């Protein structure tokens, strides 16, 4: 299509807007509310242009190009009107940072924004120097505002986690509202009121948590001003660089970019233009990584346990101490515990160390159990995440997409919005629930039998409930149904049996499957090493056959195992009572080069983005030094050598299932009317739970807290944060209470940081009551 912009004849694709055509040809038209991913809005009116034959001044962002269109983007009238409009925007927006006479000098002298702001009271916008308004003010050469400034005086909203909102800085471009609605499909925030009283936020004065916010941070990224801002880097200023990387917090390993300033990681964003992209990550990738890396209680120096406490040591001394212990020990007296977040380099180093230096085969990880093995087996049939959207029928089983698996839930939501029937089976209400055709809530205590029934119905056509019949009908008429399996049920006592049934169901229906796997490098762990079942290794130390436990970021025991010596090597301190005898601090994510194996069994690499804090040795350094001290070749532990020994293709090496004692699972009855579902947190990195490193995450998905549906809470007369006693047939515990809609009525949801579920069975019928009543 041939058009003319500012007397310049250009060829542009069909069906694009004038603004897009101009941008393709490097012609700048000022704009604030335009966003390439969103439907044209036409709110700010800065992109007005003149088009021959069109009345008035159409906006470039909403007007499509037409053959032989003649467009003028620059003229005195346009410039005057743009200036007028921008001044109107600025009359609503504090503009000390834009128009102050001292501006230039000030920015060259200021040390931090914070400091100047506190002294002069003018520079208090967190977006200073990274602000779209500033750029346009410069472009339009605005020197003063002729209109009186109108300060709205809204209090800064800080009660929600992760980001603050100062709507005094808002220019009502609506980008946040639209990205939440159109891209993320969450519809948490909206424009309340109208006209000059317009405010932005969840309706009915709800907080963001109450409003169902997933804290994806899209609204924060694309805010052109400083109205929405990350708490953690609020006063850090613009970053020095944006480094490509990926997220280590679950098996999806989403791509992201790391914001680096002065050799510190100050934040993470989804890939793409930092001011335009957003909404593709979950809260963990968007906000929690930064807090994880900058966790204040990270281990920084080698420590040795003495009877008076820990003594700080030099690396040389502490390594020789360990050498003395390991040197004369039979390798099989050592148990090695590995975190599923270790990088391939670290895992390979451990492999070499265990096989060639200490000759130990007791390698395990505390997360390895029957259900997980079964789940990983099933996941080998995974379709790529992006193919979920192509399905013509989607069924999710036990998917809990709250604050998790953003790419998966987004794919589901997009498909469902297009009209693809979506069924959700399980106990959770998550961000996809709103899009379901039907939510099938399994009867408490009858989960396994429900799956039995549906398999039976498909297999032999036996009688079944209406919902099962409906579901099967829908699957049968769909050429490519997709089943999404959540991992949140693998801690259930009957997890393995249910997985077997689900597998059978998939085979019978021919559905494709996507299994969401937890842990960043789980497949790397299972692909590089010969891992033993955790039950086997546990049995060994229970029978006093183990003298030393060497933990690489995996120390989940609730009390100290009966061994002589525990070595804890991690970036994070051990929890509670297990006082390891020696602690080796290591660099954390982003501070070393690392390779992970993603959900398609592809090795992803990323270069370190910052240097580790001084005095930290990497896992490779430590093991190399130990090998050297023990008279072995340390050259093998050089990272170049390690990389060479990576397998070409990752082949999973799964341990066999172990027989476990079967507990009888009861259904809720009048004595124990609620079904308690426990989940050992999968939101972790090395040996630390994200709930500990991120206060915000603990606010949205609390740990060691009973989560109960508002309906049940009302019935029981319970309110938030009350302490309640939970009693099952065999045990009784005390927890605080949190009322959330993420769980269905009749269920109680408990996320723990323990090694295993706390109650006798999972799920477990319980009754709850207030303490002291």
């Amino acid at each position, binding site marked *: 299509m041939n058009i003319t912009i500012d007397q310049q004849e250009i060829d542009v694709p069909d069906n694009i807007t004038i603004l897009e055509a101009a941008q393709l040809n490097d012609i700048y038209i000022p704009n604030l509310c335009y966003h390439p991913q969103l439907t044209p809005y036409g709110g700010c*009116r800065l992109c007005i242009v003149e088009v021959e034959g069109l009345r008035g001044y159409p906006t470039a962002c909403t007007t499509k190009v037409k053959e032989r269109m003649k467009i003028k983007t620059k003229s005195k009238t346009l410039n005057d009107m743009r200036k007028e409009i921008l001044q109107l925007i600025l009359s609503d927006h504090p503009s000390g940072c834009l128009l102050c006479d001292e501006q230039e000098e000030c920015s060259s002298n200021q040390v931090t924004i914070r400091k100047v702001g506190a002294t002069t009271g003018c520079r208090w916008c967190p977006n200073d120097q990274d602000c779209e308004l500033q750029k346009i003010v410069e472009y339009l050469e605005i020197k003063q505002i002729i*209109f009186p400034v109108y300060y709205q005086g809204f209090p800064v909203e800080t009660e929600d986690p992760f980001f603050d909102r100062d709507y005094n800085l808002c220019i009502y471009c609506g980008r946040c509202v639209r990205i939440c609605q159109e891209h993320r499909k969450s519809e948490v925030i909206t424009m309340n009121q*109208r006209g000059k009283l317009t405010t932005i936020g969840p309706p009915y004065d709800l907080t963001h948590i109450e409003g169902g916010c997933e804290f994806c941070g899209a609204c924060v990224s694309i805010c052109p001003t400083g109205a929405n801002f990350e708490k953690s880097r609020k006063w850090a200023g613009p970053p020095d660089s944006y480094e490509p990387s990926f997220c280590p917090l679950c098996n999806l390993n989403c791509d992201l970019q790391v914001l680096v300033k002065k050799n510190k990681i100050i934040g993470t964003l989804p890939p793409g233009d930092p001011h335009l992209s957003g909404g593709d990550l979950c809260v963990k990738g968007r906000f929690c990584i930064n807090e994880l890396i900058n966790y204040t209680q990270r281990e920084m120096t080698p420590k040795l346990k003495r009877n008076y406490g820990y003594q700080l040591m030099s690396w040389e001394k502490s390594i020789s101490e360990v050498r003395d212990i390991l040197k004369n020990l039979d390798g099989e007296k050592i148990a090695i515990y590995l975190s599923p977040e270790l990088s391939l380099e670290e895992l390979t180093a451990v492999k070499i160390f265990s096989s060639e230096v200490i000759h130990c085969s007791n390698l395990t990880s505390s997360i390895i159990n029957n259900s997980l093995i079964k789940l990983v087996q099933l996941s080998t049939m995974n379709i790529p995440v992006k193919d979920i959207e192509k399905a013509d029928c989607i069924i999710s089983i036990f998917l809990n997409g709250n604050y998790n698996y953003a790419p998966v839930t987004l794919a589901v939501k997009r498909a469902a919005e297009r009209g693809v029937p979506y069924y959700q089976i399980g106990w959770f209400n998550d961000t996809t629930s709103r899009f379901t055709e039907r939510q099938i809530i399994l009867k408490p205590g009858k989960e396994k039998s429900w799956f039995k029934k549906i398999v039976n119905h498909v297999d032999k056509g036996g009688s079944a409930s209406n919902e099962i019949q409906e579901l099967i009908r829908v699957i049968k008429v769909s050429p490519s149904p997709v089943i999404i399996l959540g991992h949140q049920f693998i801690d259930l006592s009957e997890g393995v049996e249910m997985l077997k049934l689900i597998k059978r169901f998939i085979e019978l229906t021919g559905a494709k499957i996507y299994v969401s796997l937890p842990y960043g490098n789980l497949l790397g762990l299972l692909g590089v090493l010969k891992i033993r079942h955790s039950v086997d290794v546990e049995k060994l130390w229970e029978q006093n056959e183990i003298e030393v436990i060497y933990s690489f970021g995996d120390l989940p025991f609730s009390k100290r195992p009966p061994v002589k010596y525990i070595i804890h090597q991690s970036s994070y301190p051990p929890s509670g009572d297990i006082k390891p005898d020696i602690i080796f601090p290591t660099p954390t994510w982003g501070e070393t080069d690392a390779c992970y194996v993603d959900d398609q069994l592809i090795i992803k690499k990323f270069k370190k983005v910052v240097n580790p804090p001084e005095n930290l040795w990497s896992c490779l350094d430590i093991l190399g030094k130990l090998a050297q001290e023990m008279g072995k070749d340390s050259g093998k532990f050089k990272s170049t050598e390690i990389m060479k020994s990576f397998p070409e293709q990752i082949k999973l090496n799964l341990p066999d299932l172990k027989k476990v004692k079967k507990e009888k699972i009861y259904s809720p009855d009048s004595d124990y009317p609620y079904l308690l579902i426990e989940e050992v947190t999968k939101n972790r990195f090395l040996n630390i739970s994200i709930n500990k490193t991120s206060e915000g995450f603990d606010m949205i998905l609390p740990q060691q807290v009973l989560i109960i549906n508002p309906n049940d809470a009302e019935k029981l007369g319970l309110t938030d944060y009350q302490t309640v006693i939970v009693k099952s047939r065999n045990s009784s515990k005390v927890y605080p209470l949190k009322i959330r809609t993420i769980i269905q009525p009749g269920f109680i949801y408990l996320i723990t940081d323990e090694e295993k579920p706390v109650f006798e069975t999972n799920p477990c019928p319980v009754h709850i009551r207030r303490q002291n009543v």
Partner: protein
Amino acid sequence: MEHRLHLLVCAGTGCVANRSFQIKQKLEQEIIKNGLQDEVKVISTGCQGFCERGPVVIVKPGDIFYQQVKETDIPLLVEEHLLKGRPVKKLMYKPSGKEPPVQKMMDIGFFKHQRLIVLKNRGRLDPENIDEYIGFDGYLAMEKALATMTPEQIIEEIKKSGLRGRGGAGFPTGLKWEFCRKAKGNLKYLVCNADEGDPGAFMDRSILESDPHLVLEGIIIGAIAIGASKGFIYVRSEYPLAVKRVKIAIEQAQDYGLLGDNILGTDFSFSLDVIQGAGAFVCGEETALIASIQGQVGRPRPRPPYPAESGLWGNPTNINNVETWANIPGIIQKGSQWYSSIGTENSKGTKIFSLVGKINNTGLVEVPMGITLREIIYEIGGGIPNKKEFKAVQTGGPSGGCLPKQMLDLSIDYDSLTKAGSIMGSGGMIVMDEDTCMVDLAKYFLKFTVEESCGKCTPCRVGTRNMVDILEKICSGQATLDDLDKLEFLAKTVKSTALCGLGQTAPNPVLTTLRYFRDEYISHIVDKYCPALVCRDLIEFYVIPEKCTGCQRCVSVCPTGAITGPRSQPHNLDKDKCIKCRACYEICRFDAIAGDAIRIKSGEEA
């Protein structure tokens, strides 16, 4: 059984507010008391239009017009007129003090100069009874359209009639229908826009209340022409009577097979629903209206795509105003030639105005296009009350402009009004006399727009607010001449760059008053003088000692105790305490000598 006499009691909103239901009840009681129930029938009808003089009762045959009837007048009326056959002069309309009362409706100036097409059934049928509508040739046009015309012929007929949208912008209706008919999509919608929000306008409300079936018939004809299968009537819920009557009408039409599946035995099906709006002015804008029907916040979106391509839920949608729809049956029934013979070259047919403000005959009038402002204001409206001087007339409500005295001979049609800086709008017509300050008026309308702005685009959200700020400055005497330039440029910017019709027309009151009454602005700014003595910061109240008789009426109404003084002696007015509420000025009756004893001064005088 035939009745000797029919009494038509107006049940339009204005008359209902003046107890016309009670009057009807009382009439019926009296008639029974006098044993006339077999001879006389009382009917409640839709709005007669002459709201100023409500409640209105018309006796047929004879068209005897009674006005401002009270319940206490009923026994007299029944006895004199119904029993004895002597019309009651006391209740008839008197044009002015000395002229004799006018007996017949059509002899009253207010009615004489009107030309009724849309309001043809006004006051003669019961809006809640479909049979009466059918009795007056109702639904014949629809039958004609369905039985004898193709959709293309209907559209051609409407195009030829020259009918233009009565909602404000004046887009040719036939063309709009054609766009929608030709748009791709199997599912098409029709919308009747009854979200009438201008202060002082009640045309659409009145049509819906007094002749809902006419609108329904128009919509159904539109549906046949466009091929729509579903329609919505979007009424604001502040119009409960309109909502009720439209709902009744839809139900009745359904019962008669005029709506629903297989209408009149053909394979044409069409259903109609009422949607109640929450009373946001901006929802009259078509894209905001669509958002509102879809359950979203009423905020406009940029056009194109126009609703004819992508409207309700992305389907082609045709939106017309109530009055436009109400014009359709007449055109189909009597032909486009008949219709286009009325009006001017580019504006055909009639237009309904709600005539309000400083005018003797407040009410609803239907006049042919091309009539002059003077005719409407003086001949129909009966001129300005209290011998005051006419100053300006505002057409088109907050989106329109103010036209001054020298424009009185302006022909009323789309193009001349636009040329004069105003708009036809949906038909509000507010008359102002010399007591109106034009700056204050511009401020009033602009404040309305500020309140009603949806807040989506910058010029409207912030620009109108800043315009109000400047006007406030002018009204309080703090402005400079620079501010006037600033105001004018800002007004032009808002007009050229706002997103939707609301913002684009919001500056019109300012721009037209600047154009026609610039002196008044300058006098506020330079002389600190408000010629109409309205702007509080520029006026002061004085007692004229020579005229004050010390009657103490002003003392008793003064809310702040600013006026003091013993009886029979000229009072004192303490300027520091005075809040300029005008209460004393209004109550002072000593104009016997040469004007009020309380005087307002402004500017140099003060």
